[in-house]
């Protein structure tokens, strides 16, 4: 089924599929939940040996991979639980304060 929800915010109450059904698969991707994070994992590619332990342990599928290699962290969904940093055998992931990281980012964006 073609699940077109572009203007869902304006839908009349009658239009929604009853009972909150979602007639579509994999739509959790569209609902970004990374905003809950208060700590942020930082990945150091230099130290990483591509063991993918972080990928196995991340409870949120937020370790991005491509061709069986870790490629980074998906901040759209990462909750900042720190499990990846704790499990990484090579200290390739460190946790930093999310608020401070954001402040820094905003400042940098402002400069750019």
């Amino acid at each position, binding site marked *: 089924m073609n699940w077109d929800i572009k203007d869902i915010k304006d839908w009349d109450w009658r239009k*929604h599929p*009853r009972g909150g059904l979602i007639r579509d698969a994999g739509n959790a991707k569209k609902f970004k939940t990374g905003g809950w994070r208060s700590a942020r994992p930082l990945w150091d590619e230099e130290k990483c040996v591509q063991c993918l332990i972080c990928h196995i342990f991340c409870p949120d599928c937020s370790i991005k991979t491509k061709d069986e290699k870790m490629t980074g962290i998906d901040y759209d969904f990462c909750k900042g639980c720190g499990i990846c940093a704790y499990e990484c055998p090579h200290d390739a992931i460190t946790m930093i304060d999310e608020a401070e990281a954001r402040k820094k980012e905003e400042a940098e964006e402002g400069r750019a």
Partner: protein
Amino acid sequence: MAVNFKDINKTVALVGTDAVAEAMRQIDPDVVAAYPITPQTAIVETFAQMVADGKVNTNYVPVESEHSAMSAAIGASSAGARVMTATASQGLALMWELLYIASGLRLPIVMPNVNRALSAPINIHCDHGDSMGARDTGWIQLFSENAQEAYDNTLQAMRIAEHKDILLPVMVLLDGFIISHAIDRLDLVDDDVAKKFVGQYKPEDYMLNASQPLCVGAFDGLYGYFFEFKRQQEEAMRNSVKVIQDVGKEYGAVSGRPYDLFESVGLEDAEYVLIALGSAAGTVRSEVECLREQGLPIGMIKLRVFRPFPAKELAAALAGKKAVAVMDRSDTFAGGMGGPVFIELRSALYEEEKRPLLVNYVYGLGGRDLPVQLVNQAATELGEIAKSGQVKQMVNYLGLKE
């Protein structure tokens, strides 16, 4: 006690629980998940025997609590199965949060509930406090006067629940012990008639449909559409009035026993009317007919459908009556507002220009008996109210030691 149903064809003598189990056998649901509780136990016990004997194709899930029973029912129904369960009293109370989930997800689960008082003090006998407490959970509620109606309501409930404009769970209510454990004479429709009437369940959306992925029970989000879904539920409840009537008529055509939202005696010339639901309706009817023979202008309404509440239809039926007494087998503890049926009826009549005087009789809590003498007392007082035009006491306790 399990009954051998093999040789039973039309007229049978069964306790109410076995009458319900017979309806369940004819429906042959895909899944039944249930937990025993007095006085419902005999329903699922008899049905479990039917499963063991291969009389049905049902997957029977013996769970460890009613909370799990309703959870399993919700899961199975979401998957696309036709699902039933049964409970009573504390069991219904333990299902509470799931009752809202079943209706919120619009799952057509059918559940007989054998009405029993809620603790404390512990009491296993009949009153309507359990299901009346669940009146705002979004379930359709059908009350039964006897085993015949419990059986008939169960068959009809499946059709009502699964109707494409409704898709709401339905509770079939029967009075604990009075109906559930007393042997009653009733007629069962033939299996093929019952099966044809109930029909096959073809869900539009179900989780085991591989060609249409489906997400059931998603988080509605902080800025979601919860409000819209609740409004849809209310709409389905409103639509169900006509569906309940249509299904009742259709059932009448195949069984000879038509059903409506309520049933009445003597409304055409009655000046005052008693309203009751459940098994008490039989006692009230017998007394009302007796008083009518003596020439008194009395009538009665037996309410079958409590959710949706047939407000318009009741207001129309009671138009021009001088006085109405509502019999409630539960209390709301609202502080002098009376029982649930009384509160609803009072609200339903508010718009009427000529409202009848209203009086409430709360009776039978915890299984306290309702002999005809008490109905006579209420009828006599109601007659006096109609004559004097005055209600001395709005909420009364009938049969209370005072």
